[in-house]
């Protein structure tokens, strides 16, 4: 690939993220006023940080899973990992009202259970079929969404809360205490992203063909396990703060591959940047188009589903 063009694309991705960030801070349901300026900026910067973190991580995890499983249709949402994380967070929420620190932990456990369950379900005689994986993901996703509802009802939570847990939003309110949980989660999350990135070379080999991978000495089982665990931590962390957000992790990696080529060493950081930008723009739409705001997944699904259908049709 032409070096100059690649540089230009990186520059474009960064510029897109900066533009999205500016929009996110500048446009909101309330107008700036002199008295509330500081409060509004603080709140919008929190939202911005959460949006970059969530969008970036979801897209990067989506790109990693697509590469590892050699499957263009998977992402944390279609695999049921996000709803698994939502279930884990919901259980933690209902059981442990004492501390918000347990939510990310619950999210991680839920995500890990989901990804392993889906993988086992889709694995028939040692092989994982592409459509089987997505089918298993969708089935588990239904199950987990229903269980989220059940847990919320049994735990006497409001239905509004259940809806936002399953459809995502960036409006989480942080206190001086819970912001530290978020800071630690973000540090962990970024470390996880770098860790996944360090597998880029192995992911390249696996996504070309599993046989080649074996002959080139890549321990696919170990790689799969490592990616599953790290991805679960990442998705669990994100979902425990934002709820399950759909399709960002599916669409963004494809767009990035079109621009930067298939090498994971570029696709993963590219997906992080683009995912963050896309989520911020989605959030700007979600909170400004309808008074009172919408759950995020309504917006991301409107863009994501047509793209998903396109990918599906192309494979059939």
């Amino acid at each position, binding site marked *: 690939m032409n070096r100059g063009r690649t540089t230009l694309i990186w520059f474009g991705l960064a510029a897109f993220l900066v533009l999205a960030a500016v929009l996110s801070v500048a446009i*909101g*349901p*309330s*107008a700036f*006023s002199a*008295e*509330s300026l*500081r*409060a*509004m900026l*603080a*709140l*919008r910067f*929190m939202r911005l940080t959460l949006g970059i973190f969530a969008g970036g991580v979801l897209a990067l995890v989506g790109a990693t899973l697509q590469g590892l499983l050699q499957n263009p249709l998977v992402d944390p949402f279609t695999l049921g990992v996000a709803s698994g994380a939502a279930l884990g967070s919901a259980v933690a929420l209902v059981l442990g*009202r004492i501390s918000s620190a347990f939510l990310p932990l619950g999210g991680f456990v839920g995500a890990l259970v989901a990804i392993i369950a889906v993988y086992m379900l889709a694995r028939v005689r040692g092989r994982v079929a592409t459509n089987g994986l997505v089918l298993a993901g969708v089935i588990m996703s239904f199950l987990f969404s229903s269980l989220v509802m059940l847990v919320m009802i049994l735990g006497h939570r*409001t239905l*509004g*809360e259940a809806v*936002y847990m399953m459809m995502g*939003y960036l*409006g*989480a*309110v*942080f*206190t*001086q*205490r819970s*912001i530290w949980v978020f800071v630690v989660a973000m540090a962990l999350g970024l470390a996880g992203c770098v860790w996944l990135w360090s597998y880029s070379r192995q992911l390249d080999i696996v996504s070309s063909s599993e046989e080649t991978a074996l002959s080139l000495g890549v321990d696919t089982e170990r790689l799969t396990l490592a990616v599953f665990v790290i991805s679960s931590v990442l998705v669990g962390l994100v979902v425990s703060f934002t709820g399950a957000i759909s399709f960002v992790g599916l669409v963004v990696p494809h767009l990035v591959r079109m621009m930067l080529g298939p090498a994971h060493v570029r696709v993963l950081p590219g997906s992080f940047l683009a995912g963050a930008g896309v989520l911020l723009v989605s959030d700007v739409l979600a*909170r400004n188009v309808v*008074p*009172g*705001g919408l759950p995020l997944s309504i917006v991301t699904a409107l863009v994501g589903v047509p793209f998903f259908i396109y990918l599906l049709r192309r494979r059939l």
Partner: protein
Amino acid sequence: MARASLLFALALLVCGRPSRQKPAVRLRVVSLVPSVTEVIYAVGAERSLVGSTNQCDYPDAAKAVYKVGDFMDPDVERIVALGPGLVFATLPVQKRLVDKLTELKIPVYVSRPQNVEAVFREIDSVGTLLGVRARAEQLVAAMMARLESLPRHTDTPRVYVEISATPLMTAGGHTFINGLIERAGGRNVFEDALQEYPVIDAEMVAQRDPQAILLLHPDVKALDVTSRVGWSCISAVRAGRVYDDIDYDLFFRPGPRVVDGIVLLFRLLHPQGR
């Protein structure tokens, strides 16, 4: 419409002969509305009450009444099995049930008072229907007198009511509690909301700068709210006027304790004028 006129006819029928002696057979009633259950006890007609919901928990004695299910989803079969002469229900949550009971020709009284005056009228009608009209009139008179005795106030503080923290939700202008806030001499900062209980953004709270914050859900304490990132500039937080640990049934149940709710609100909103 047909249903409304049926109810009206029923009410007229009973109201039309108020002063005769008590009926020989006491009316068996089921209350699916916690506030109506409170009214029934307050007017001393609890011996008519044969069924209620799991949420009908005030006064304490109401907990022992036979339960026909949850307020959101009462069990029709259990209601019918009680053979009630009258069922108290509310809309819109119990819409399907009301239709079903009407179909089964079981008389239904739809309780939906939107403001304090409507609560007074409802106490009167419930008392009349259950043959304890005099008690009901006494109760209403006492409640009105208490409202009248509230001291004058000069300020109208801006109030933010929080009913959920994740997502942030408040009560809009078309809610019962909004009327109570106005009665208590406050102004709901989200009175312009289109929905009854809208989801809102933290920045909308910051911009509207409430002078008092009422936490009407169990998830957060006043201390958590004062330590929220970006909330420190809000007048209520700066003045330490964030109130938790409030018995919010007083605000959400349009029943005999509604004046208690207004008095409590009045004290919270005008702490100096006590």
